[in-house]
């Protein structure tokens, strides 16, 4: 008997709040996540009390408080995957395993924060050792040398990629511009009506070289949530289900230290992507669009390579010439991503993929989208990937 998760679990509901910077959401971090959760449940045609599983994002709320607020009287599955921005997609895997094995019937995946009006992401990481990947390692061996925040960690890898493969700033710029173009077609995107040119990209101030301002994701308020159940139960719900064809998550070695890897480019996704494609029984060439965790531009390029959309070292030329824009061979981040829609910790990449596969993409709909990929990237290169179909 096969134990593969292929096509056995579905995303049946999606929800999200408005995404914004100033003046902020006006709600608590838990409140906006509950708002997105209730929207996802309504979308699915489920009552909150029908939930029996909750998978909160790391450090952004407990399953207990979600359950108490939502009236979940029988919480049977409560878990958090500690993979930073890779957590939402990795949670899809755990939720699929939970519902197909009968541990739970309906699992809620919420994520959200007041990343603009509350404590900024950059400060949280720099000042709170408990939330640092690597924990004491980062405190004792990175921070005293001024290596204190995610763009600095990842810039170390980007620099090596430029050295080994000749990747150029203009190619990172092509990623920022593609995300910004897509945001112009997304009425809710924070960067709507703020187009970006290559000149403006190149002129933007350095944050941590080689990352300029426009290589870096937004800091925003907002939340998103999805509901997962079995393919069997999905048939009785309000919306046409989106099937999880393949899903995997993995960590690089060593996961708690980003500089001592034999191969600096071998991240969690390197391990996870072939497993997910093998489960799904499709190849990267079969994929119609990809929502790729875009904390910084180079991470998009690297994940395009490690997912297998092109070979390692070929990402720079791959992203040029409109390949990753709507109308290109592989539209990436059709909503604008973390770079130009909003930073919702990767959960909005899942909601956007579901929207595309339902045909609800509006002006930014990928024509006849059948198969979409969503990735997550977190901490020191943890990776996750889901291959979804309509």
């Amino acid at each position: 008997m096969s134990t593969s998760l292929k096509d056995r679990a579905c995303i049946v509901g999606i929800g999200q709040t408005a995404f914004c910077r100033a003046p902020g959401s006006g709600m608590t971090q838990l409140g906006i996540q509950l708002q997105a959760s209730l929207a996802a449940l309504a979308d699915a045609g489920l009552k909150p009390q029908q939930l029996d599983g909750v998978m909160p994002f790391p450090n952004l709320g407990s399953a207990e408080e979600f359950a108490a607020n939502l009236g979940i009287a029988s919480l049977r599955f409560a878990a958090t995957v500690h993979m930073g921005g890779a957590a939402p997609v990795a949670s899809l895997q755990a939720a699929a395993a939970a519902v197909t094995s009968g541990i739970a019937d309906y699992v809620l995946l919420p994520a959200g924060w007041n990343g603009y009006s509350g404590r900024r992401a950059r400060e949280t990481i720099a000042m709170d050792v408990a939330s640092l990947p690597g924990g004491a390692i980062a405190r004792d061996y990175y921070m005293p040398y001024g290596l204190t925040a995610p763009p600095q960690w990842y810039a170390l890898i980007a620099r090596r990629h430029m050295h080994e493969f000749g990747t150029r700033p203009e190619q990172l710029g092509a990623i920022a511009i593609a995300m910004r173009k897509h945001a112009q077609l997304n009425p809710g995107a924070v960067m709507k009506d703020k187009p970006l040119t290559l000149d403006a990209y190149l002129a933007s101030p350095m944050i941590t070289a080689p990352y300029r301002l426009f290589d870096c994701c937004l800091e925003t308020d907002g939340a998103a949530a999805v509901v997962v159940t079995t393919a069997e139960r999905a048939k009785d719900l309000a919306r046409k289900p989106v099937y999880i064809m393949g899903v995997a998550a993995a960590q690089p070695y060593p996961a708690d230290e980003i500089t001592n890897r034999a191969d600096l480019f071998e991240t969690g996704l390197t391990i996870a992507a072939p497993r997910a494609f093998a489960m799904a029984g499709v190849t990267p060439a079969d994929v119609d669009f990809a929502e790729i965790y875009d904390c910084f531009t180079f991470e998009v390029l690297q994940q395009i390579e490690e997912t297998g959309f092109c070979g390692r070292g070929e990402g720079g030329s791959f992203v040029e010439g409109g390949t990753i824009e709507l109308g290109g061979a592989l539209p990436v981040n059709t909503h604008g991503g973390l770079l130009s829609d909003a930073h919702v910790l990767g959960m909005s990449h899942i909601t956007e993929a579901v929207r595309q596969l339902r045909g609800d993409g509006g002006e930014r709909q990928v024509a006849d989208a059948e198969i979409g990929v969503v990735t997550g990237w977190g901490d020191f290169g943890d990776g996750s990937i889901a291959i979804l179909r309509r």
Partner: protein
Amino acid sequence: MTDTPTTPRPLPALQGLTQQFYDFCRQGELRFQRCDGCGTWRHVPREVCATCGSFAWSWTKSSGRGRVFTWTVAARPMHPGFADAAPYAPVVVEMEEGVRIVTQLVDVAPDALAIDMPVEVAFEAVTPEVTLPKFRKA
């Protein structure tokens, strides 16, 4: 973000193996763990050898020499303790022993850094208790 230059720079917590590593630095010695079983060098400090499983290891003196492996130039510091330091460059040095270490160079401007630049350790006492292993151009 409170960019007060008076915010102290972050320091390592001197406990366990980390205390031992930094105590050697304070004495002017860069030492890494080396497995007594299979000879594998390691950094950062670990309890057990991930190659052979041996708990036996020795703090073994490094040549102190290595090459610049990669770096970033922090133009916008993201920790208030470094607000007055920009631009500065966290650098990864690959030691002759094979391990890599996060550090800074004391005598090379950020825009003069180059991959494979040869460097050697240059200790910097930042407090009476803590000496950081930094590097200079060799």
